[in-house]
């Protein structure tokens, strides 16, 4: 299983801090996001409307990176600290 965490406005719009989904072997981040968007249309809308950042295990990675069981993926809007 892979966990997906949401922050700030994304967390409020999805109505959850975290969801868990299964992932086949050798799935790239790009494939994973495409599948996620078809399973969860509300996530698709968020990614389309906002400049969403996608992090894997606390790092911003390329979309061709492979996702593995146990990974933590995070989806969040542009940051606004400071």
């Amino acid at each position, binding site marked *: 299983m892979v966990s997906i965490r949401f*922050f*700030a*406005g994304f967390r409020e719009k999805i109505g959850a801090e975290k969801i868990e989904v299964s992932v086949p072997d050798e799935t790239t981040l790009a494939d994973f996001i495409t599948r996620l968007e078809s399973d969860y249309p509300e996530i698709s809308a968020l990614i389309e409307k906002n400049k969403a950042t996608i992090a894997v295990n606390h790092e911003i990675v390329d979309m061709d990176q492979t996702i593995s069981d146990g990974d933590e993926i995070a989806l969040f809007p542009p*940051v606004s600290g*400071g």
Partner: protein
Amino acid sequence: MISVQREDFTIEEQIEKVKAASKRIGGVVTFLGTARDFTEETGDVSKLEFEHYPGMAEKKLGALRATALEKFDIIEASIIHRYGEIAAGENIVLIVVGAMHRADAFTACRFLIDELKQIVPIWKKEHTKSGEVWVSDHP
């Protein structure tokens, strides 16, 4: 030298921590970000609320500090950012940079706050009379 914390901080204490790194420090520059009670976009703001991504926020702050230490001729740098509810007038973020000479300390301090605002996963929500708004939701 890096912290994301709910509680307030003392500027004096952080300056002393940076100074303790070396007696070669000849200049200390600080940036203190505080909560405004007004913004051009939303008008009156009664309080702010900050959310962070635990783990990643600290990691990014640590990487920023390391970059500043490598990139500029400075001796020590500390960064503290608060999360949770912060009333107007309260402290939000403190950056303290110590260097042999002031020019490098000023440059590094500005670099740290500018980069923090761009890459560290922390989000600000403004509470106003007309409701609550995440700052990243502004058009």
